[in-house]
């Protein structure tokens, strides 16, 4: 066998493999984004089916839905957590680690605004967080008869209402988003 011919063949095979892997690794995010946005655009048919799970890529964070600041919630919000104990007493829950950060909270807990958004989209995680607060606030979970999660929010008023209201923001309001 001519060594000079074998080498280029091996080299070509190596290069084709690399190109296929590089392109192939882009297909899951490409497919998911096309499918998801096609769905959002109201399209139907096979293109929508491209929006499917790619667990092996997702597990490695290599299949992301890209849409930075595509939306912004028209209200600012924080959460408030309250428990009712077996004796009827109501108690607010505190996140002592965050509160201990004081004026450094926006630096030490820089990721919290995004975590709050993630909580908003994931009620189960919000319940897990409530249980965490119950434990760290020193309550026995068995003694808690009701857990209530409030969203404490204030709307951003549309431009045409600002002059009449004399402010950019609506009144501060509490709304129960989960109670169990």
């Amino acid at each position, binding site marked *: 066998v001519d060594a000079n011919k074998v080498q280029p063949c091996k080299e070509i095979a190596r290069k084709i493999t690399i190109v296929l892997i590089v392109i192939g690794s*882009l297909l899951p995010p490409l497919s998911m984004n096309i499918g998801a946005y096609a769905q*959002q655009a109201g399209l139907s048919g096979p293109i929508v089916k491209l929006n499917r799970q790619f667990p092996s890529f997702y597990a490695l964070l290599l299949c992301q839905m890209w849409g930075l600041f*595509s939306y912004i919630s028209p209200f*600012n919000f924080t959460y408030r957590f309250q428990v009712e104990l077996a004796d009827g007493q109501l108690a607010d829950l505190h996140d002592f680690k965050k509160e201990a950060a004081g004026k450094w909270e926006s630096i030490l807990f820089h990721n919290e605004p*995004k975590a709050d958004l993630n*909580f908003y989209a994931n009620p189960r*995680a919000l319940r897990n967080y409530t249980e965490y607060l119950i434990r760290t606030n020193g309550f026995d979970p068995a003694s808690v008869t009701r857990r209530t999660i409030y969203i404490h929010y204030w709307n951003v008023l549309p431009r045409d209402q600002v002059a009449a209201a004399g402010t950019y923001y609506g009144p501060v309001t509490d709304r129960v988003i989960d109670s169990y």
Partner: protein
Amino acid sequence: VLSTVIKRAGARLDEFFFGPDNTRWDLVRIGAAITVLVPLILLGASGNYERLYGHWGMLPRNVAVDTIYWPGFLFLMKADPNWIWEIYWATMAAALCLGFGLWTRIAAAVTFFLYVATVQRNLISFNGEHGILAFVLVALVFAPSPQRWSVDHLLLKKPLPSKTERWAARFIQFNVCLMYFFTTIGKLLGAWKLGTTEIWYQITLSDWFRFPTVEWFRAPWVSWLAVHGSLLIEGSFAFLVWTRLRLPLVLAMIAFHVIIAILFSNGVLFFNIAAIVALCGFLKTTDFGVPKQSAPATNAASAGKN
């Protein structure tokens, strides 16, 4: 004629993926390491690491077993609560090695896995920078190594690679293009309508914006520029970056992220830094008029010419 066209296309494709690589990998590597390290230090110093990823944190170990993706299982392997701190220090060590360029490829692979494992341990902690750093770290595993500004080269005296290929840089570049392209699609399908500025008005009054009391940020011309400027620069990036406009466009995009980092809250600071790090994957050692040779072979050739 057809065979000539195919041969030419093949040659261009070969050059595109396997031509000599002069990407500024040092910048990408050091930037990626910093973007892993600084948030990790903040997580450790604040107690947030234990709050997010601890056995008794907001996603307890017994609950996490049924809900998380496999890389996160690293955190669940041992019942000892101190186990997460061993992972913490291992991640710090790996990211430090990556930053200094010590055993670069292994450090990149270990950092990638530990970083992904950490985020997957509790996806509530997921933020945009995690998605960017994941593909950047993967690319660093395969990038030419050792790099010029690395312990591997400067102290351990490992020679610079005599032959480099561009495909690892292409991986970053394609991912960045996908990111901006789909972001633009998402914005146009979402709240960013051409000709309107309502979305910018809302952004300037949101908790994400640092200066909600500064009125001129909501002036009509500023709003119009913010909405249409960002749509234009992000929407065109994926196409124009392959032309001669590459360098000014990449620099404009870096400036764009610096402005966002200044205007917006700390919640998006590391996302912007990660985006800038990924954009460095488009910069070449020959940019800014200071050509740098990447290999001894090239050095010898240059010396011969001189």
